[in-house]
């Protein structure tokens, strides 16, 4: 038995080497896309765009991620991809600092790293495909909320978790805009919903009973918007407490048509996935270099680059008038 083990090891090594040569021979570029959670419709919609780009570019796309928002699991997947020797890793970081060590390791192995949706530490990736700057999102949400509330009164916020990097960034800009432009509005509470619609509903119910003058609930994670809307409907406060948030059209259509939710804000998620794969591929081929000012991505045309951020553009507002044109 003892003498067998090294021999087995040798066989495994030979087989593995064979595998590597084989994959090098067909030389198709491999781009690995890591979502925060792979069951999430938001990231699946990103994947649709990514698939389209992969087809156009003739590259191979890997898509894998944690089933729930799990920062440690993301590290594991990146480690696996490093072992596998992919060409590009594109990550939506659950934990900004947490993922960065693994990404730096990937870069050391010659793998090109970009981030999308939620950034890691700047030194651990080449570019961040920014779906909308935190400033654009924060200001957009706050402006829309203020418009709906008539520029005054109390409002509350529902977030996914108090630690998610992108949620915290958005919140920072929401609060900055609030301070700067809407002195008559007051943020009375921020509650986490753990990305669960049911919990968002309970949180919104308690928020309304604890704050009788509440005029608006702003949900900055996608399950939070229908959750808050259901709570408002059940409390019989449709129209009295407005709902606005960052979410997906399909999950909110019912409430938008019912007059519970006024506006759903987002960017085009398919474009985000598409642009990410284009940028990752260009990086690996050397056609996209640090310092570039613009980048052209297939059929979507040209995008601005600000520093090391490739900008997708301004956020989009879905409302009763246009929401039925979208299906994701």
């Amino acid at each position, binding site marked *: 038995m003892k003498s067998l083990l090294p021999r087995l090891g040798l066989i495994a090594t030979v087989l593995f080497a064979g595998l590597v040569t084989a994959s090098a021979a067909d030389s198709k570029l491999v781009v690995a896309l890591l979502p925060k959670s*792979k069951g999430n419709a938001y990231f*699946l919609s990103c994947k649709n765009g990514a698939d389209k780009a992969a087809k156009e570019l003739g590259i191979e796309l890997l898509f894998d991620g944690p089933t729930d928002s799990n920062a440690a699991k993301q590290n594991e997947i990146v480690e696996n991809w490093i072992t596998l020797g992919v060409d590009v890793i594109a990550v939506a970081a659950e934990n900004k600092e947490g993922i960065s060590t693994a990404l730096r390791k990937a870069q050391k192995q010659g793998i090109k790293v970009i981030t999308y949706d939620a950034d890691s530490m700047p030194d651990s990736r080449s570019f961040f495909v920014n779906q909308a700057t935190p400033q654009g999102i924060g200001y957009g949400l706050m402006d829309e909320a203020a418009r709906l509330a008539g520029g005054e009164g109390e409002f509350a916020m529902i977030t996914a978790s108090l630690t998610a990097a992108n949620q915290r960034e958005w919140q920072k800009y929401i609060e900055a805009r609030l301070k700067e432009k809407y002195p008559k509005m007051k943020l009375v509470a*921020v509650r986490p919903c753990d990305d*669960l619609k*049911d919990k968002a*509903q309970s949180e919104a119910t*308690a928020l309304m*009973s*604890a704050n009788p003058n509440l005029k608006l609930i702003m949900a900055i994670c996608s399950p939070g918007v229908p959750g808050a809307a259901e709570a408002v409907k059940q409390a019989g406060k449709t129209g009295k407490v407005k709902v606005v948030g960052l979410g997906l059209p399909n999950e909110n259509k019912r409430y938008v048509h019912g007059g519970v939710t006024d506006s759903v804000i987002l960017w085009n998620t398919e474009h985000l996935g598409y642009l990410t794969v284009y940028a990752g591929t260009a990086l690996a081929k050397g056609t996209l270099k640090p310092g570039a000012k613009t980048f052209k991505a297939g059929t979507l045309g040209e995008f601005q680059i600000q520093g090391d951020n490739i900008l997708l553009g301004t956020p989009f507002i879905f409302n009763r008038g246009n929401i039925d044109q979208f299906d994701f």
Partner: protein
Amino acid sequence: MKRYFRELSVVGALGVGLLGLAIFAPAFFQPQPLLSLVTREAPTLVVACGMAFVIICRQIDISVGSMFSVCSVCAGLLAARGWPLLLVLPAAVALGALLGAVNGLLVAGLRLPSIVVTLATMVTLRQGLNLVRQGEFVNLPDRVQWFGLSQTAGQLVLVAGAVALLVALGLAMRHLAAGRFVYAVGTDAEAARLAGIRPQLVTFLVFGFVGALTGLAAMMNLAQSPQVQPLSGLGLELKVIAAVVVGGVAISGGRGNLWGAFAGLLLLACVAPALTHLHIEAYWEKAIQGAIILLAVVADGVRSRKGGTG
């Protein structure tokens, strides 16, 4: 009185908490929001009852959250296909029982450790669901919400149903032979066997039972909203295990009851809305819940070291 000291101390803590709220945040007790919040916990209570059975039987089932999601989505799809609720309900319960029976077969039949078996089924079910549904919400027909009743009537039916089930199971646990068998197996499976009980059969049935209750709970959750999120039920296992343990059910089996689990659930479920009403930052929520659990296990540890019976 002394016999129920552990459970009563949880009720006492709950009472003190509610009294504090009555003084500092009376708005907590407005009927409509409170009914909505309580209704949201009704499905959790049903699963917690099942979990109490499992833990008293000296097993654990961490797959309830995933089973809950699978049952929710399947029941939702059936309802969306136009099945009448009278058929969807038994289908959800049967599916839950089936999933639970798989756990039961592996644990009781092959004598595998339940934490590993249910860890495996937890991950498999969750991943399978994600693969098939890709996170997409299931939209339900209008007649599903509140079983077609008015909102208040629907909420009362759900809460009353959950409480009635709790009472029935709590009494059965204490007074029916089958209930005593669970304690016997959880206390000492070998002694139970010598007394003529079949421990493996009891274990199998307990797993099937918690599955059936989870299916029922999924249905009770389904009736509260016009759409199902496939992630719903994520983390449910931790919530109910915490409730059961706080309620004085010994994780080593053989001790505890459903009344305690009920009090434990209410105590933990109050934390989040109480903080909102007291305008305390959300960061404290999990810390306080953790502290309650810690306090409960420490209390149990101290008691058993002192050689307390119970």
